């Protein structure tokens, strides 16, 4: 079941091995109940401290990698309008265009939403729990795409930095777009946001928040699949 061909899998094996060692030590203690002498204390320190810490460290790293995957985002059904659109080879949305780029790949949600608190670090743990709580209490049984739930919004406004780490605003062709040239200083200062113009259905067209219905839009002449895209 566990094949070792990446660091992530190596970490998972390491996490498992240290967890099993800890479990063996603890079961031994529960069965034998030896007096708390110096050597028992040291053995227990391994079973209760060192080994579980190693497990959670390795588990954290591989778990973190796992949460970056688009499939993880899509595992809560309310994200399907986003993930299915991003994976659709015929979609013209910015999320899909970016997802088709190899540099985004399977981690495309994370690449644009790197400041989203479900990813990484300590605060994630509490936020993850909070998300799970909302998901269960407010979005369970809301239909296949979460249409019955409250509209989804972001905790904090989308920062230009999330776009400008790739689109530097320095490229000549980018500067030739009239709307960019007109607002250049304000964009660089952050007073004008990229998402003032590049937002809503342009990014996530199937989202209920932007007038979508969760599903792929019906094909019309104006949004026909680009030449060369997979035929439906």
């Amino acid at each position: 079941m566990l094949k070792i061909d990446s660091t992530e899998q190596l970490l998972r094996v390491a996490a498992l091995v240290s967890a099993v060692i800890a479990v063996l030590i603890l079961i031994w203690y529960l069965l034998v109940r030896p007096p708390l002498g110096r050597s028992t204390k040291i053995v227990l320190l391994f079973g209760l401290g060192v080994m579980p810490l190693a497990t959670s460290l390795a588990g954290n790293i591989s778990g973190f990698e796992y949460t970056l995957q688009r499939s993880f985002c899509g595992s809560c059904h309310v994200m399907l309008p986003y993930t299915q659109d991003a994976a659709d080879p015929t979609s013209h949305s910015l999320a899909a265009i970016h997802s088709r780029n190899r540099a985004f790949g399977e981690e495309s949600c994370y690449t644009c939403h790197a400041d989203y608190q479900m990813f990484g670090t300590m605060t994630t743990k509490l936020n993850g729990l909070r998300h799970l709580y909302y998901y269960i209490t407010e979005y369970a049984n809301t239909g296949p795409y979460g249409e019955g739930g409250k509209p989804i919004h972001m905790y904090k406004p989308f920062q230009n930095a999330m776009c400008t780490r790739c689109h530097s605003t320095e490229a000549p062709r980018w500067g030739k777009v009239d709307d960019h040239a007109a607002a250049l200083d304000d964009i660089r200062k952050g007073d004008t946001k990229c998402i003032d113009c590049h937002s809503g259905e342009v990014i996530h067209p199937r989202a209920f928040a932007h007038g979508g219905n969760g599903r792929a839009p019906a094909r019309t002449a104006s949004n026909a699949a680009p030449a060369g895209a997979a035929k439906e």
Partner: protein
Amino acid sequence: MFSVTKITIRRLVLISTITTLASLALMIASILAPGPLLLVVAMSLGQFFGTASLVLYLLAIVLDLQGYGEHDEFGSLD
């Protein structure tokens, strides 16, 4: 203040052992079958209980090293 006996210390260690086992079970499950629910629970609650039980254990050791319960009648249970 309640008095700390050898029994208290052994109970602390026992509680710590059981909560650690529970959190290890969560973590092992989340590694073998990584799903969003398990993963989030294991990475938050699991690690919280794991850490809390280590703190309990260290507390027990400190109490023990300070000689609590050395002279109570249950001392011989050790």
